């Protein structure tokens, strides 16, 4: 592992995680060759539990490849299978089917104590009978690392998480945030090939959670280890991740960068889970082609216009078929007069106005019977656009319409990770 060079390489590549995914390629893969195997690979992994009522599927067939040095998140509501997936990678659960590979090596039935990955538990699971240093040294001692080296590495890692002064405290004497960092240090000190984190910030209050998100990202950049992060908090995932797999009912609904997930949610579930979105369900009037590709013109009232680009992820968009499209609330323009030009236009009446400081949220009931949410930035020159009961026109660019696919596994999830995503140096 490259962690030997220590935090020296942290200075470069402090890119915004949200926009970084595809363009940065500063990573030097450990193997030195271009086609090093992914850090973690799941091939057709599934998990079923036997319960009194029969088999319960926790994870339906998942294919996944996580690149070296990537900050990868499994995001989804509780019961979606994200924690089970993580536990299978850690070796705490054996998959019912499929294979798990770490750096190309099949570890499917290798126990946790022989797997070169470490887990940060949601409840931290710190050993109450050991002090901070003892907790952190636990893994190194079991691996038989020489005593002097254990002391040096424990000291280093405690400095990294800024806990050097508390080395002789017991976990019980620490605050939640400090315990969280001990848990992180205890796992990281072993220099695992990958670090697994199971909702590690779940028990912290909002303010501390936000600080720790930035902290975690910093630490990940400094040590350059692959992080697999499980969370149900979409903002947490968006903040830190290079890529996110959105899971639902034991399947990966979409696997993409945060930006891609937000701008191009593949399914209605993803659109609803990540941020706020408006979903319109309309039947197709005609399918034609404009400058950028095929587009579908959807049913709309007089003077209204609803168009959605037809992308390759969709099947069977023909005249008469029903399409669900999503448009984000902040992409929508609201005017008193009908706007000109090649934009999507809907007519409606404002039913709710909620002032939120930086922006105002309008709820508009359209002529077609849809309820549309609009975020309006309260910038310097913005004055009150409309009040309750006002007739307004909503408009947005065609390419901000995005057609949703039916729920189910993302066929693209199994593809190779977008070339070296890592932000580490």
């Amino acid at each position, binding site marked *: 592992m490259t962690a030997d060079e220590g935090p020296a390489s942290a200075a470069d590549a402090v890119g915004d995680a949200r926009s970084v995914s595809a363009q940065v390629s500063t990573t030097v893969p450990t193997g030195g060759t271009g086609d090093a195997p992914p850090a973690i690979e799941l091939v057709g992994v599934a998990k079923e539990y036997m319960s009194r009522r029969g088999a319960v599927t926790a994870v339906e067939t998942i294919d996944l490849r996580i690149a070296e040095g990537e900050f990868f998140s499994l995001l989804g509501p509780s019961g979606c299978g994200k924690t089970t997936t993580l536990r299978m990678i*850690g*070796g*705490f659960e054996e998959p019912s089917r499929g294979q798990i590979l770490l750096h190309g090596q099949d570890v499917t039935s290798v*126990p*946790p*104590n*022989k797997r070169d990955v*470490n*887990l940060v*538990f949601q*409840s931290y*699971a*710190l*050993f*109450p*009978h050991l002090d901070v240093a003892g907790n952190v040294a*636990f*893994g190194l001692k*079991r*691996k038989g690392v020489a005593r002097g080296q254990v002391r040096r590495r424990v000291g280093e890692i405690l400095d990294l998480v800024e806990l050097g002064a508390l080395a002789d405290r*017991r976990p*019980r004497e620490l*605050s939640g*945030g400090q315990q969280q960092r001990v848990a992180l240090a*205890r*796992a990281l000190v*072993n220099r695992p090939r990958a670090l697994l984190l199971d909702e590690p910030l779940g028990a912290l209050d909002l303010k*501390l959670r936000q600080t720790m998100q930035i902290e975690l990202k910093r630490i990940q950049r400094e040590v350059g280890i692959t992080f697999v992060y499980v969370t149900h908090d979409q903002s947490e995932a968006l903040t830190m991740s290079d890529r996110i797999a959105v899971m639902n009912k034991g399947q990966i609904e979409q696997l993409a960068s945060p930006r891609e997930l937000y701008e191009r949610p593949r399914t209605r579930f993803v659109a609803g889970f990540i941020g706020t979105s408006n979903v319109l369900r309309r039947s197709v009037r005609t399918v034609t082609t404009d400058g950028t590709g095929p587009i579908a013109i959807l049913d709309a009232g007089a003077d209204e216009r609803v168009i959605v680009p037809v992308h390759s992820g969709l099947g069977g968009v023909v005249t008469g078929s029903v399409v669900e499209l999503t448009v984000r609330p902040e992409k929508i323009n609201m005017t008193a007069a009908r706007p000109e030009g090649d934009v999507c236009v809907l007519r409606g009446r404002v039913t709710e106005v909620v002032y939120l400081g930086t922006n105002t949220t309008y709820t508009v009931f359209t002529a077609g019977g849809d309820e549309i949410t609009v975020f309006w930035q309260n910038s310097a020159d913005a004055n009150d656009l409309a009040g309750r009961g006002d007739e307004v026109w909503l408009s947005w660019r065609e390419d901000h319409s995005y057609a949703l696919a039916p729920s189910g596994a993302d066929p693209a999830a199994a593809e190779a990770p977008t070339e070296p995503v890592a932000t580490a140096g």
Partner: protein
Amino acid sequence: MSAEPAATVAPAPGATGPRRGRRGARWRSPFTPYLLALPGGLWLAIFFVVPMLVMLSVSLQTGNVVDGFVQTFHFAVYPDAIRQYSDQFIRSFAYGGICTVLCVVLAYPMAYWIAFHGGRRRSTYLFLVLLPFFVSFVIRTVSWKFLLADDGVLLGNLKDIGLLPDDFRVLATSTAVIGGLTYNSFPFMLLPIYVALERMDPKLLEAADDLYAGRAAVFGRVVLPLSMPGVFAGVLLTFVPATSDYVNASILGGTSDTMIGNIIQTTFLTNADYPLASAISFILMVILLVGIFIYARVLGTRDVFEMGTR
């Protein structure tokens, strides 16, 4: 974040910290905690401290039942008692010690199994362990006597089929006494160990597993240290009663297996030598207390008890 709790309280001149802190709860009497402890305290004072003092006083009297006892401060009774009954003292501690060790060895694996692998039937198993308690322990011990009799159900039949020599016996041996002690103490060892194991967060075992600990290391480095409060409590609950027990020795033991409890009993009830009986009781108590104190020190009670309050 827990470092500066005092920062928000502006220190008013003359007002000390603790007083200020208690102001909100002024309606509550400062004597409340003592009042809560009063019934138990009175109970202990009347039925423990007073008899103890009486016993101490009696041990320093001389005389006999017929002519009565006089306070003479005859301290020589103590060294005399130790000299006269050193065999029984040593035997009692040996039996108590062996019984305690056997209890740990037998009860720990069972408690472990019930706690970690008992599943939904855990309470059933615990109930089964406690079931003998529903029968008087004297009766239980007497029934051992029938069971282990030289020509009883067990030995008699084994001798008949030639598996045991005719002169083989268990009853009236130290084996029988230690066996009886162990049998009667077993649940007192099992329950505290079980409680300590049962409340252990299973994630800790996973964490140890994750941190490269094999089965032995998971047990030795995590499970065992965390269950020590239970073992400690179990040892106290078994060793003390077992050492001062007289029922097992008198029912299951022979003449060469008398324990100090039997001596106290006969000295007190048969010989009516109250001073000597009191002195022996006192010596036993002091040795036990000192022993426990050393034991707690060696084990580090601070840690043991802190762990228990995790």
